[in-house]
């Protein structure tokens, strides 16, 4: 197997090369993680301001004053964009993928360390650019994270549609470039740098999930990048890719002949795979943790791999299910609908296998396991609203109602966040050399799981009753006024759930400095990251190269001296 061209045998000295412009995948992973942590708190604050405004539209807040309808829409746009790109794409893949993947395959670093550093700092620039949109004249754009033209293409279509919208598109374009660099690096590393004996079918399911996610990213982000450049051209160079002849407030705009649906096709060709980019690493983490803490091999390893591959494959053929009401051909809706239902099949296989893994196991309830179980519950709940939305005939009632944010928040939002929490509690000892506090972890878990359901279950009810999305207040439509009490409940639930996240933050930082020291393998797990020291040395294995003799999840092996056989244990151990 090859080794990365720029791996140094000695760790760099000096603060800047060691911690800021580091080439070490472990430092870069932690950088990505803290970027996502910053982003998630900003994103959550925005959602609280939104929930507050929906219930008390004329109330005045200290520091913010009264939130106007256009400010609400700006908060919503930025919440969605920051969460999808800078949290759900950044933490699971850029953060944990970067830190763990090379160690789990027995590599000293990523294949292209310099590219890895570049992709992080490019992501960072993208984040600064999107935050800047808040502070320019007119403020942040109000066109939603999906940015449908002509609204997003016309500076005169609303406040925030001037410089704020340009910064929004620019930030996304920068993010796309960074993700493309990252994707290439992940794919090359997985294919090229595996240790001796680490065959594809011995890779941990986390590695499979990051690998498949990287392939999706490589195919999806390029399309979004091109689409974004075309949108910038429509806005600034007078082209008409997306804008036909339109009249805004009595003024004829200078565009002609463009197609608003073209953007929707390009955007969702990226946007649907993006859902899987957010959730696949969570599936990998859940599989890893459920097996470790059930002390049992994963049920149906191969089926899990094939299910992830087919989710990734079908993920590129279903983008049109976001467009059933768009004016797209109703015949194509038919095809998109059937293909979408097909994705339900591998998703169901995964759920069965997770239950099968725990079945007749020895379940240990450490915090990572609680989050992995929570992940399965949320994945089921969020997944089962999918077959409603996948049917065009039901979309007549449900499209663009609160049913849709209820569905995707459960599955790609909170389930993915549960994956991140599970991964944090699981790998924190390896990353920082100390254990996190279990009591705080459990309290955090119980409030978060109950709170999540209290927020998002009622949104399904509101959506069935016809509550339209992206309404800053419910005062103007009679039937929506009746839904205000339900929404008030959701707002209170959101406040409590967000408050509970401070338990996590306190636990994270307290444990980083004060937690009890972690051993090399505190969870008695089997994969390669647990064979090296805690935290791992600069080249991951201290000059040695691991040799892999076993599959990734050998727990409860009859006849073995311990209840687990590590991947590097001698080949004589009795595994299948």
């Amino acid at each position, binding site marked *: 197997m090859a080794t990365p061209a720029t791996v140094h045998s000695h760790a760099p000295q000096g603060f800047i090369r060691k911690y800021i412009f580091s080439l070490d995948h472990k430092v870069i992973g932690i950088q990505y993680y803290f970027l996502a942590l910053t982003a998630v708190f900003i994103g959550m604050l925005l959602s609280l301001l939104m929930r507050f405004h929906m219930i008390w539209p004329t109330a005045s807040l200290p520091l913010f004053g009264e939130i106007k309808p256009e400010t609400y829409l700006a908060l919503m746009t930025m919440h969605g964009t920051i969460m999808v790109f800078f949290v759900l794409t950044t933490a699971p893949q850029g953060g944990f993928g970067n830190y763990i993947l090379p160690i789990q395959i027995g590599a000293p670093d990523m294949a292209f360390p310099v590219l890895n550093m570049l992709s992080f700092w490019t992501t960072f620039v993208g984040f600064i650019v999107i935050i800047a949109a808040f502070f320019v004249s007119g403020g942040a754009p109000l066109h939603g994270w999906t940015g*449908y033209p002509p609204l997003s293409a016309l500076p005169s279509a609303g406040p925030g549609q001037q410089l704020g919208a340009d910064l929004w598109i620019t930030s996304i374009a920068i993010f796309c470039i960074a993700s493309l660099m990252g994707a290439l690096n992940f794919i090359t590393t997985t294919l090229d740098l595996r240790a001796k004996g680490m065959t594809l079918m011995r890779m941990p399911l986390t590695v499979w999930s990051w690998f498949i996610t990287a392939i999706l990213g490589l195919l999806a982000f390029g399309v979004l990048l091109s689409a974004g450049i075309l949108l910038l051209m429509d806005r600034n160079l007078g082209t008409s890719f997306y804008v036909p002849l339109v009249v805004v407030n009595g003024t004829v705009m200078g565009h002609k*002949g463009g197609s608003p649906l073209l953007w929707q096709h390009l955007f969702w060709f990226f946007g649907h795979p993006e859902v899987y980019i957010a959730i696949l690493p969570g599936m990998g983490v859940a599989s890893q943790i459920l097996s470790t803490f059930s002390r049992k091999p994963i049920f*149906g390893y191969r089926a899990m791999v094939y299910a992830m591959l087919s989710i990734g494959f079908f993920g590129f053929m279903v983008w049109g299910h976001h467009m059933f009401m768009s004016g797209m051909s109703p015949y194509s809706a*038919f095809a998109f609908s*059937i293909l979408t239902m097909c994705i*339900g099949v591998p998703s169901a296989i995964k759920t*069965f296998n997770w239950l099968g893994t725990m079945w007749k196991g020895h*379940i240990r309830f450490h915090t990572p396991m609680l989050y992995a179980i929570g992940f399965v519950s949320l994945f089921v709940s969020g997944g089962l609203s999918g*077959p409603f939305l996948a049917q065009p005939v039901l979309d007549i009632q449900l499209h663009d109602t609160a049913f849709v944010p209820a569905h995707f928040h459960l599955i790609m939002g909170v389930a993915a966040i549960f994956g991140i929490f599970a991964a944090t509690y699981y790998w924190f000892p390896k990353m920082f050399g100390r254990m996190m506090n279990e009591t705080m972890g459990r309290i955090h878990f119980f409030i978060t799981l109950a709170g999540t359901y209290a927020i998002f279950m009622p949104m399904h009810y509101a959506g069935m*009753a016809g509550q339209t999305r992206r309404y800053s207040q419910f005062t103007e439509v009679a039937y929506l006024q009746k839904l205000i009490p339900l929404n008030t409940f959701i707002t209170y639930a959101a406040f409590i759930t967000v408050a509970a996240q401070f338990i996590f933050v306190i636990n994270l930082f307290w444990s980083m400095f004060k937690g009890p020291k972690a051993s090399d393998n505190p969870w008695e797990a089997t994969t390669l990251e647990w064979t090296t020291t805690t935290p791992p040395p600069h080249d991951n294995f201290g000059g040695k190269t691991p040799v892999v003799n076993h599959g990734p999840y050998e727990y409860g092996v009859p006849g073995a001296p311990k209840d687990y056989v590590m991947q590097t244990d001698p080949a004589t151990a009795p595994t299948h």
Partner: protein
Amino acid sequence: MGLALMALIWLITLISTYFFVAKTWWLPAGASAAAAWIDHQFALTYVIMGIVFLAAQLSLGYIVWRYRETPKSPPVQYSHGNTTLEITWTALTAVLFIGLNLMGSSVWASQRFDPAESGAVQVEATGMQFAWYFRYPGPDGKYGATNPKLIDPSSGGEAAVGLNTSDPAAKDDVVTGTMYLPVNREVDLSLRSVDVIHDLFVPSLRFKQDAVPGLNIHMHFKPTQIGEYEIACAELCGLGHYKMHGMVHVVSQEDYDKWLAAREAEKQ
């Protein structure tokens, strides 16, 4: 810990299910010909998904409690899976999901593949930031020409949709802010937008369709109950999205004729 987790998962599952079953919040009563079919497909999906939801969540809760590690736990079952089981549940899910989908497809086809019946009431809906205008072609059955340059939203009515009043076909066109429809007649609706994408959503009529600038989208539906139904815009269209509200008045044929005649008379 296993018991607490099972309790929480079961509690969440049962409370969520209670509100679905009690229909505390539910689809508004349907008032169009398609409503019964759509609601039937909705109910079918809802029952099937509800059963899967209950089965999956309750067994998840049970398993985490039942197989918690105790000093007395028997050795774990060392198993890498079971191919027969994998094939069985793959096949079952595939049949269930795809079958469900096919059952709903005929409703979709009748809604969107076929054109409106002949003799349908002609109405054109035009969306703009942040209002709907409805145009009736008048006795000649032909819509007059419109011109983007003539659009003047501040004047409302005909000027808002840019009606070219010098076109003979435009002479008898009626433009209003409220949609009037006769009951039990098929409606042939053309949807247009002059600026950004809007969406005409009438929950009670089970009607939803984007209005896209540059496209003229033909839809058809048949209101079956007299009443007043709210329109809410269902595609983000700018800062006034939340107040882009309208009304559909479904009236008897007689009242509809009277209403239309009065509007025509106003024009003269």
